[in-house]
């Protein structure tokens, strides 16, 4: 592995997930040495556990966090606003794999939806046309099924219920993908063995993650200096206002300094704004790149919910790929439904230990037990749609709770927007009807889980006063500071965000490589 001196002003990437891992590969492949700092450990595929809670304890980001607001997560899981990963490969190691693209109009949410009371909608400074070539490259890199010649995954039991229900209620746009897990060997990795463990890390390496593709390839270039267990706690700047170094804590609590000529932050949408807020200085008294007061604001987490339906015959939903089933019929914007934006329905399976914790948090008694008794006959789906950005939904620094390093923990404040609530109720109804159409004897509306899609806290904007970064992800206020994760999303769209994060990172890498080679950075 390449070793870059700590006093050498390097290209420094913070976070090794979908954004940071992709950026590290694309830049090193272009001949640019990088330091990649990852807060978590280097956990390998063979280290993963086929057990929900063991895997959770191994992989999840469990540093101190707090919550506030009227969202139900704050009541049920007050210390766990988000379920994301702290490890090399970031949350791509536990993501399920669905890769729909954003739609044309979703980049123009304000123009399309108009003024929505209480929402801070804004058009992206880029269009679908700008991103389309990078979507192609991302799909090819990730091996999305149904795309670029990649075959579809077969129907598993949960999908059979889901797709037949879809057909019976009149939906047409259902399929087992697009889904970034190999149906046949591809890109040096094997086909899925349908082991049913996605959220726990894929031991078989059939599922795309930066752990199995971008990071090993970046290391092979000989240009990557990967440092796991390196939690960045501050970005410093020089008298010129440009970032000049990052400070990080190793696993023993020792502080280190890495000099930087470019800093790319990809810590996911809670840690990224937290780091900028922690990096306040005399010159940037409210946090780095926060002169317009948008860092941490407009936090989005997608409108989500689940429906679990019980049948009088076996389903065994846990056998096979967790989310290889997508219905897109409700994804379009159709305000006649009583809300703007759209949503997808996607198959979802939990094992008994997660289902018990999440199907109805806080519930107990005979009705709860009956739902669990029906486990083998249960089918499940997730609903995921566009939520409204709101300035008051935001990540701030706690004034009372500290993390293990003594630094202010992030607080995540979230209130559902009326549009989110209307969409969720509509989607619950549709999901229950779908299952009734194939004979469900009962079904249950499960509230949102801790957020897996965290977006928008350093949003992209044409004008500096409207956001944090420009169309390349470059901070409006700090010319050598970039944001390279889902934080940059101006609005959230309905689709699962990983594909778009990867596409944006490939595009940003191309821009960065050009600027670096031209001597502009």
């Amino acid at each position, binding site marked *: 592995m390449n070793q870059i001196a700590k006093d050498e002003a390097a290209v420094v990437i913070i976070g090794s997930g979908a954004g940071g891992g992709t950026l590290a590969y694309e830049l090193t492949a272009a001949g640019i040495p990088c330091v990649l700092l990852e807060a978590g450990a280097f956990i390998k595929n063979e280290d993963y556990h086929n057990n929900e809670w063991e895997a959770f304890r191994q992989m999840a980001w469990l540093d101190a966090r707090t919550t506030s607001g009227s969202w139900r997560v704050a009541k049920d899981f007050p210390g766990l606003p988000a379920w994301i990963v702290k490890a090399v490969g970031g949350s791509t190691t536990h993501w399920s794999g669905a890769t729909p693209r954003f739609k044309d109009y979703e980049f123009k949410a304000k123009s399309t939806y108009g003024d929505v009371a209480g929402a801070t909608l804004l058009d992206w400074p880029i269009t679908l046309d700008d991103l389309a070539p990078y979507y192609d490259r991302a799909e090819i890199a990730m091996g999305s099924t149904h795309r670029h010649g990649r075959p579809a995954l077969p*129907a598993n039991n949960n999908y059979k219920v889901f*797709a037949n229900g879809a057909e019976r209620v009149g939906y047409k746009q259902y399929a087992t993908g697009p889904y970034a897990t190999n149906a046949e060997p591809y890109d040096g990795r094997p086909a899925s063995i349908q082991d049913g463990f996605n959220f726990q890390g894929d031991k078989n390496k059939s599922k795309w993650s930066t752990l199995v593709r971008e990071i090993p390839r970046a290391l092979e270039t000989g240009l990557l200096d990967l440092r796991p267990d390196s939690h960045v706690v501050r970005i410093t700047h020089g008298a010129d206002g440009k970032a000049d170094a990052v400070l990080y804590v190793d696993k023993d609590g020792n502080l280190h300094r890495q000099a930087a000529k470019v800093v790319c932050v990809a810590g996911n949408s809670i840690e990224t704004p937290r780091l900028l807020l922690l990096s306040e200085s005399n010159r940037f008294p409210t946090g780095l790149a926060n002169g317009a007061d948008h860092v941490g604001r407009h936090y989005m987490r997608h409108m989500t919910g689940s429906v679990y339906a019980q049948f009088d015959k076996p389903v065994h939903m846990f056998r096979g790929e967790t989310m290889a089933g997508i219905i897109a019929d409700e994804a379009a914007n159709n305000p006649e439904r009583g809300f703007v934006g759209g949503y997808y329905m996607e198959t979802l399976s939990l094992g008994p230990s997660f289902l018990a914790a999440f199907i109805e948090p806080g519930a*107990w008694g005979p009705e709860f037990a009956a739902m669990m008794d029906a486990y083998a006959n249960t089918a499940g789906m997730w609903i995921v749609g566009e939520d409204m950005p709101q300035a008051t939904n935001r990540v701030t620094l706690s004034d009372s709770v500290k993390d293990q390093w003594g630094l202010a923990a992030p607080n995540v404040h979230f209130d559902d927007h009326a549009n989110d609530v209307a969409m969720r109720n509509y989607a619950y109804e549709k999901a229950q009807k779908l299952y009734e159409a194939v004979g469900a004897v009962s079904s249950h509306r499960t509230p949102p889980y801790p957020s897996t899609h965290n977006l928008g806290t350093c949003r992209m904007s044409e004008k500096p006063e409207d956001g944090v970064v420009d169309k390349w992800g470059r901070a409006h206020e700090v010319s050598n500071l970039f944001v390279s994760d889902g934080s940059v999303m101006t609005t959230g769209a309905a689709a699962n965000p990983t594909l778009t994060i990867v596409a944006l990172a490939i595009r940003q890498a191309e821009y960065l490589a050009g600027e670096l080679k031209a001597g502009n950075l």
Partner: protein
Amino acid sequence: MKTTRRHVLLGSASALLAASSLGGAALGFTLDPAKDEASKALLARVVRVAFPHKNFPDAAYLRTAGVILTAAEGTPGQKLAFAATLHDLDQAGFADMDEAAALDHLKSIEDTPFFVLTRSTTVVTLYDDPEVWAVLGYEGPSFDKGGYINRGFNDLDWLPEPRIEEYEAAQ
């Protein structure tokens, strides 16, 4: 089932008698319920009433009760509060109550730290028990067995085989 529960009752009663004969339990309660089989059995009944699965073995409920008792070993204050609630349950004759009365009794204490700890520990313990998985029909870790690709991932036969391609592609 009934026989087992009678054993639980007898065990509970005799342990209390034994404790009071040593003079340490004039209050009639056990300061260290984690090491006390009668306390564990009483707590296991609480868990069974709160999460009633007629096909789950008693052993699984007892294992969960053991985990809860360990989780209750926080500060002396927390430990004391937990032990006191167990004692109250015993005094109220919880072990002798029929299902409906026992359920009502738990509803009356559902907001207590005792019950919140019991409930929250149970959902992540009882349903993470391989013996319980077997009863529920969940097959657990699968990678070492080659996944489910040859073990029924698509064996559902009561619905037609659905299309897997996208609609546009299927035209």
